[in-house]
């Protein structure tokens, strides 16, 4: 069965627009197997240990388990991104309706990885929260607005960001990022799962 990722026709590996011969920005489509949002009626309810055995994600921070990243996006509300295609089912099993809710958004989000020394400067053109390394250090995550689009931004490292947007806006995110990256030069790498 043919599955078409939202940026498959745009983020074609090898494409790009360098400055001279340099491309300081590398773009790659993010293709996680699962993107799941879950929330608890009581904001203080911890994520079940069966899902996150270690530290809970702090507000606007991400916690990781093997193959997964968990983001705290609002009080009692989380987003989980991972390679486990059964993640939504596992969460539904772990979180009964009496505790909270689970929504599978896997097909509802497009993801883009932005890598390079000027990655923060590039995204700062659109994001109106502080991307300074001290203010938004690695493994920070938050929801924000970028060119009138709601986005979820995760900083994985000093120069590595993942940006998720509603699937229908994938093209507009791509247009915005590739335009904003013109001054740095950009290239496309293979999709990241």
């Amino acid at each position, binding site marked *: *069965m*043919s*599955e*078409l*990722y*939202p940026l498959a*026709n745009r983020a074609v590996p090898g494409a790009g627009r360098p*400055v001279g011969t340099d491309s300081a920005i590398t773009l790659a489509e993010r293709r996680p197997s699962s993107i799941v*949002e879950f*929330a608890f*009626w009581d904001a203080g309810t911890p994520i079940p240990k069966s899902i996150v055995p270690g530290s809970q994600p702090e507000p606007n921070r991400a916690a990781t388990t093997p193959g997964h990243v968990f983001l705290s996006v609002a009080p009692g509300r989380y987003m989980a991104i991972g390679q486990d295609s059964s993640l939504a089912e596992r969460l539904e099993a772990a979180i009964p*309706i*009496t505790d*909270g*809710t689970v*929504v*599978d*958004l*896997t*097909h*509802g*989000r497009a993801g883009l990885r932005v890598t390079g020394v000027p990655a923060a*400067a590039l995204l*700062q*053109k659109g*994001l*109106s929260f*502080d991307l*300074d390394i001290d*203010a938004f250090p690695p493994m920070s995550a938050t929801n924000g607005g970028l*060119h*009138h*689009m709601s986005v979820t931004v995760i900083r994985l490292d000093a120069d590595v960001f993942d940006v998720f947007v*509603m*699937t*229908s*806006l*994938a*093209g*507009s*995110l791509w*247009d*915005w990022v590739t*335009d*904003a990256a*013109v*001054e740095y*030069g950009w290239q496309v790498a293979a999709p990241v799962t």
Partner: protein
Amino acid sequence: MSGVRLPSGGTLINRDRPLTFTFDGRSYTGFEGDTVASALMAAGVGTIARSFKYHRPRGIVSSGPEEPNALVTVGEGARAEPNVRATTAELHDRLTATSQNRWPSLSFDLMSVNGLLPPVFGAGFYYKTFMGPTRGAWHVYEHFIRRAAGMGAASRKPDPDRYEKSHLFCDVLIVGAGAAGLSAALAAARSGARVVLADEGAEPGGWLLAETARINDIAAADWTRAMVAALAAYPNVRVMPRTSVYGYYDQNQLAAVERVTDHLAEKPAHLPRQRQWTIRATEVVLATGAFEQPVLVDGNDLPGVMLAGAVARFAQAYGVAAGQKVVFFGGHDGVWETAVATADTGVGVAAIVDPRAEPATDLVSRARTAGIAIHAGSAVVRVTGSKSVSGVAIVPVSASGEITGAVEALNADICATSAGWMPAVHLHSQAGSRPVYDEGRGIFLPGEPRERWRSAGACHGVFGLKAALADGAAAGRDAATEAGFKTDDAALPEIEAEREPSAPVILRSVESPRSAKAKIFVDQQHDVTASDVTLAHREGYRSVEHLKRYTTLGMATDQGKTSNVAGLSMMAGLRGEAIGAVGTTTFRPPYTPTALGAIAGRDAGHHIRPVRHTPMHAWHLANGAEMIPAGAWMRPRVYFKPGETLEQAYIREARAVRESVGIADVSTLGKIDVQGPDAPEFLNRVYSNMFSTLAVGKARYGLMLRDDGILFDDGTSWRLSETRYLMTTTTANASPVMQKLEFLLATVWPDLKVSLASVSDVWASIAVSGPKSRELLARIVDDIDVTDEGLPHLGVRQGHIIGQPGMVARLSFSGELAYEVYVPARFGIEAWETLLDKGRDLGISPYGLEALGTLRIEKGHVAGSELDGRTTAADLGLAGMLSKKKDFIGKAMVNRPGLIGENRQVLVGLTANGKGIPNGAQLIRSATPGAVERSLGHVTANAYSPALEGYIALALLENGKAMHGETLYAADPVRNRHVEVTVRDPHFYDPDGSRMHV
């Protein structure tokens, strides 16, 4: 004017890098670091522009952003930028500058005839000439007036340059990198705070770069460069030259524009021309300096009448002598120091004229040593010359300024005046602090801060190099401390001893012995004279705000930086009040002219806003669909076949639905996941009809009302489990509905355990409609019984479709047997193509918005054009859906008097005999086109109905039910249409719904 390049000197220029440029087509040379003004002055060009109204020749007045006169157009063609201040425009190789507002040439401007008519064109000219009975004359004369007066003209071609925007955050923002700003930055930098130092100049330093005093025993310019380099080496400091902070907004948010490539001859295509910065600073230090003010004298607009400091700065910073017979005039010690410093650079200074009878002896001695003639106890009363200054007339004056002797003529090519320095309080004022006038010092000072800023240096009246450096350091420490950082008390640099200034004379203007013949210009940019101010006072425009509007004083690109204070001073004198009592006008952004392109950034054209695409978008494009915007979405309008018109295309598509099967992309419908133990109760409250009784596996059409009883939205909600619904909304209202529901849960019913999530983009949604839809559906589902028994009308089933987990709901918008098929978004095209493939033998056709609209009009189903924010459920024939058994949003207001009664416009159908019914047309009784008659309603949607084989429409019509069978006219005078229509029931096709219940 006889400007010339000095043989040496010029802290800002690089004499090893000559540049060529043109002005009005003539080639000149300058140096790297020059401005257009300094290069033209060095080339001996005195007249740079013509004035706004009277086309009088004008030269360079200042050396900075306050310049009122020397405005030029820089660049050519689409890149021509008008009204650029030559004093701030950086020279680059092959720069092209052109003078403005002259015809046929700058030196011979026929429009200078306007100068003979100043009484006619004085203050209030437009108000007196084009008001009342003669207001129509404006339309006759407008073209000529606009041609005769004005400034530069913008290119009408699209701007080819790139502009960008970005955000910037810091602990301490310092605006201005003069002595105080630089010192503040150094103090704040040491604390570890994130510091941004923004300066509008090409090189940070402000007036330090033209300072003659030595700092730490090195030249001020060298010390400045060393400090800037030291600052730039701090990892926590960002030095931003060429960055004008032009706006101060609430919550310490400031706006700045960085000129990225304006100064480059070769502008790299990948770089923006300018970048707009939105700066959010925890603390701000405003070190914006001060503007020297002129002394207004008769003839003060002649090229060659300049500000004293500007003459010195051109010599010190650019190595340019503005003239060789410079006469300095002012009533304070600074004029003397400026004159002597200017003479020391090699500029010929002829005289100093000071109304004070006994100027400081040390200054007198220094001036004499420099060979400068001294005229103490005298004032310049007139500047003479035809196209430039050739001399000045001086007279002896008393301590109170009265003329006490005869006029004496002095030879001069430059008259350099100074009425002292006025703090630049623009940003302070924008931040909500009205300037406060210091009567003793004759200056406006910043008011009490209402944002988190403090001033440093001249902008709050701390003049003098040593004082400014100390004040800046204190401000920098204070800002860093307030931002939460620890600061230290580092030693200040050593400065040569500065002399204490003696008491100044507050001298803003000098009366001319020529009285009425005198031409004293207050605002040179807008040709506002002293007599205009007097006229405004005489005619009752005495408030400073009225003075500004009536005379245009202080308007335009310089915003009165060298004219406001003089104008206020004059008005205060005429009113017999102190300047402080008269007050100032309000300072508003931008502080200096800002390109609209920079404010827009990349939000233009293709990038003006995001566009939403459905999962099948690429297929639509590849298969002949004409796409049209529907809110933020792009949707297929029709799928053209070769040679088809729009009407032929949508009729073919609609027929396919009526006769066989069609598929439409309905992914744009809003989809909200509603979960929780209280989800049934929640839907009961937000919908007008009952949802708690809806069985699992069923869908129900629901109405939402606004609080005021007007219809808000409609759609179906599907019960997926006891505690979970999938709510669908109209495409247009997906976001408003979500926001409303979240608001209700957060604020009105926080006790309800309900969670919402938008899943609009999770699913690719396809409407499969037509008598053969069930047969087709059966071919693509894996584990769903689609028989009438297995999937009855309004049934919902979850299962697998083309092998993927999905849902099918038996719903009909077309009136035919129909289904909505939901598959995961990334499988949308696969499902779409599979449907087309499996339905080929059934005569399948994709259909777009036009056919979709046609089908719903035939059925009388309402959509966005009927849910227009004015209609009620009863208006649209849906009153039966307002539950009487439960409460719901809007119920309390739905039966208020204004929303009921016979005069309400209600939904009706219209037919026409062979003619299309214009959409939006007004319904009237008169058969006469153009008849002026009260409208009874309007057409909301129109189509050619393939089922009825005629033109039909839906309309909202007063007392519509009683009008069935009547003849009206759809009047559309804008498009010259007047069509006879017959009113009828809106359900044109299959009114009993039998076709969808098979």
